């Protein structure tokens, strides 16, 4: 009893020959199918090169285009020839010219000999497979596909669309339940011969001829009719990318393939000399009689598919530039934006850095320069503090900053004095942003400043206008950030609670409450200051209500109690 190999070849004939000899050397009879589009000269050279092997046959040639019936026809011809020519073949293994046996062939023979009734063919109903292409799963079996997907995509799509509109459906013959799976299988003589000599075969053939990608469903469906025992997996390790194209194995996959313990892998790059050298020599497998375990390879390749289709969130680079809405995350990590805190508290940045252990910047969008933490002029990734460079593309600046500092949470200050136009929307829409605002506290530095009151009044009006627009942005229904807004009056009523909430959300170790609070600016006289602004015709309202009397009648309280705990 032995294992017969059907080999479908269309290119890289030197490698195909090498692999054929490898199979033959282990005593496996071969039937080779060469694509009809291969030039006669190449084909004849290939045939004569293998003429010294006694158990090699070449079957009738068909034109094999991806996703068409030709591949099934080729397999049928080869299968028939195999069953007819080699009486003692019990399992038939379907392989291609770019398949590479990873373990000694004898191990495969033994493995199959221990399981004489088992068909190894991946076969799942359409409802259960996630890897269908182009959204066509069950429709593969109920629509017609006269146009090539590769060559005439437009016609293909339009014709599918038309059939859907017309409600066209093909009938599936004899109550077959369509199954799909990897086209690389290993069937027993019993099952294969039953499929090939079925009295209704012409019905099935006529039906599958118009199914899309029949090589993934013909044998997979029919095997279910006859098989005594189906093991629904392929013995051939074969991975596919997001477009359904097979991944190719190169020299650097050697260790990965060794550890897979699979019997056969495809598709191998024809110039991967190291792979062929390693696995074509006799002692390659080190005789591990283990079950195939492609788990690690699976993980690596599914990661690659993810990388190709979803990319790394928050990364903008030369080959990933998502249009709006497809970013899958504007930034790569969470960060906090504080507005007004630096004005209200005297040492807010130092305090925040100490309490949370995060990186706390000043006003990143300040007019003069990006105020990086600790007065740095460049940040990770050589991000410059130049205001011109930053303002050239603020969004890229912010995305780069968060990307470059992956693993360390970033906090920064923002306010109406900064260049926040263009960037305020980006931040508000970013679910990674945590924005906390004490509205109106821009008035505190003005209150403390030693400027002419006319200038102060003008500046206050400007800042109020900017901040009021900014608050509209934050309150818009498109804002996705976690946003908290307090008026200044509200905030100083009970500053501890909001601070605690924000810090907790940043999620650092401080579970037992804040041991230390930042020092609030001295606000005595602030109410009067606001009243003065009002008297000048300006209407400061973003800070909430501050009683004037406080400043007027209590001059003795020159040093009000700072907000300290404990």
């Amino acid at each position, binding site marked *: 009893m032995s294992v017969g190999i059907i080999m479908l070849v269309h290119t890289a004939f030197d490698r195909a020959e090498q692999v054929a000899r490898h199979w033959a050397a282990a005593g496996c009879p071969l039937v080779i199918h060469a694509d009809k589009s291969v030039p006669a000269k190449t084909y004849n050279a290939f045939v004569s090169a293998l003429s010294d092997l006694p158990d090699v046959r070449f079957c009738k040639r068909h034109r094999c285009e991806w996703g068409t019936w030709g591949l099934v026809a080729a397999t049928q011809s080869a299968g028939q020839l195999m069953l007819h020519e080699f009486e003692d073949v019990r399992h038939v293994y379907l392989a291609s010219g770019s398949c590479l046996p990873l373990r000694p062939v004898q191990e495969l023979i033994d493995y199959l000999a221990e399981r004489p009734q088992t068909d190894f063919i991946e076969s799942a109903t359409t409802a259960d497979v996630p890897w269908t292409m182009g959204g066509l799963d069950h429709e593969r079996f109920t629509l017609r596909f006269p146009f090539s997907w590769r060559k005439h995509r437009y016609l293909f799509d339009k014709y599918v669309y038309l059939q859907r509109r017309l409600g066209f459906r093909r009938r599936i013959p004899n109550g077959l339940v369509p199954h799909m799976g990897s086209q690389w299988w290993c069937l027993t003589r019993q099952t294969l011969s039953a499929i090939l000599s079925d009295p209704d075969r012409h019905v099935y053939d006529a039906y599958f001829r118009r199914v899309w990608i029949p090589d993934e469903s013909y044998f997979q469906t029919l095997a279910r009719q006859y098989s005594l025992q189906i093991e629904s997996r392929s013995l051939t390790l074969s991975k596919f990318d997001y477009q359904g194209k097979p991944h190719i194995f190169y020299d650097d996959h050697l260790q990965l393939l060794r550890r897979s313990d699979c019997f056969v892998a495809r598709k191998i790059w024809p*110039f991967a000399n190291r792979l062929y050298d390693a696995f074509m020599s006799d002692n390659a497998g080190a005789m591990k009689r283990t079950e195939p375990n492609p788990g690690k390879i699976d993980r690596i390749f599914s990661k690659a598919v993810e990388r190709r289709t979803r*990319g790394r969130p928050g990364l903008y680079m030369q080959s990933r530039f998502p249009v709006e809405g497809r970013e899958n995350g504007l930034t790569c990590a969470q960060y906090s934006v504080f507005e007004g805190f630096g004005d209200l508290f005297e040492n807010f940045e130092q305090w925040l850095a100490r309490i949370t252990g995060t990186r706390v910047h000043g006003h990143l969008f300040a007019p003069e320069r990006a105020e990086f933490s600790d007065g740095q002029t460049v940040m990770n990734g050589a991000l410059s503090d130049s205001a011109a460079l930053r303002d050239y593309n603020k969004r890229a600046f912010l995305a780069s900053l968060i990307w470059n500092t992956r693993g360390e949470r970033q906090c920064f200050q923002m306010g109406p004095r900064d260049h926040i136009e263009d960037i305020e929307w980006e931040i508000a829409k970013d679910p990674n942003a945590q924005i906390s605002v004490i509205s109106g506290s821009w008035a505190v530095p003005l209150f403390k400043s030693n400027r002419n009151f006319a200038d102060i009044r003008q500046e206050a009006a400007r800042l109020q206008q900017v901040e009021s627009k900014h608050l509209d942005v934050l309150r818009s229904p498109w804002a996705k950030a976690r946003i908290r807004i307090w008026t200044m009056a509200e905030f100083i009523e009970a500053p501890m609670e909001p601070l605690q909430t924000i810090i907790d959300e940043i999620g650092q170790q401080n579970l037992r409450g804040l041991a230390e609070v930042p020092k609030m600016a001295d606000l005595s006289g602030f109410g009067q200051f606001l009243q003065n602004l009002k008297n000048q015709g300006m209407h400061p309202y973003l800070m909430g209500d501050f009683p004037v009397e406080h400043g007027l009648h209590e001059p003795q309280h020159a040093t009000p109690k700072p907000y300290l705990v404990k």
Partner: protein
Amino acid sequence: MELLREAGIAYRLRWKRRRLLYRALRKRHQLTAVADRTGEIARDAILAAATVRNEIVRLPHFLTHHRQLGVDHFLIVDNGSDDGTREYLAAQPDVSLWSTSHSYKLSRFGMDWLTWLQIRHAHGHWCLTLDADETFIYPHHDTRSLRALTGWLEANDRQSFGALMLDMYPKGPLKAQTYRPGDDPFRQLCWFDGGNYVMQKKPDLQNLWVQGGVRARYFFADRPRQAPTMGKTPLVKWNRRFAYVSSTHSLLPRRLNRVYCEKGGEMLSGVLLHSKFLHVVVEKSAEEKERREHFANSELYETYYDGLIANPDLWCEGSTRFISWRQLEAMGLMSRGGWV
């Protein structure tokens, strides 16, 4: 309306491409063959094309590196070298060399000459268009040859391949280094700016306009719009009807510029390690400033040249030390996309 506008742009670009090809055709007489070995180009050969001027210092490594990657034949135009570049190249067995003393700037920075050579010799080949100070790398380049890359690109229906130009610089003043021709220049130029790139999509050509890196940070911090373009499309399955528009930053037809994914995924891309800041740059800058052959608006770049002539130290606290392609890939400067 949008469709009409698009069609208008497409039509205009079509004529632009024809103009570029016609330009190249007219400039063909400026080239004199010095060593024409193009008869040896096999049908599936991978080519590299470059215009060089006084690059004897960089060429040995340039040729070695790209040969190792799997470039089979080099098409090179020598623009009036006087340091032995010409003799050196003429003696290489896999180089076809042409020479010219005409203006580099008037030849669109050498592109007209190369376009002509590509029309003649690169049709149907994968062709890498480079400068002598660019070293092309891509994911897995240490274990997979260019042929593996181009084969994969073809299997994925891609005709072009994008790369970010990465300015490499030393730590310390530029002139303080010593470099022997043939050595790996990135042993000394082993620092780069890892995360200060900005990009926008050009509406007409649809290429990504990438800027940033050390030159933007150091020389153009006050006028970022003028900072050099860092995105390139150096590797193309060439057709004689193709033409580069400005250097290798963009080309026509514009579908070739779509080397990036807009749906959130990452496409396979590479990096051009830029060895501009070898010690020779200081003298060369003085010469280039005089020749005014390198930028369309040369006056705008005088301060840039002055900055270089001053022998600066480009290194900063935020610089990253170059280790390997895996590092660049992990930092997101290039991507392996779906190529595992």
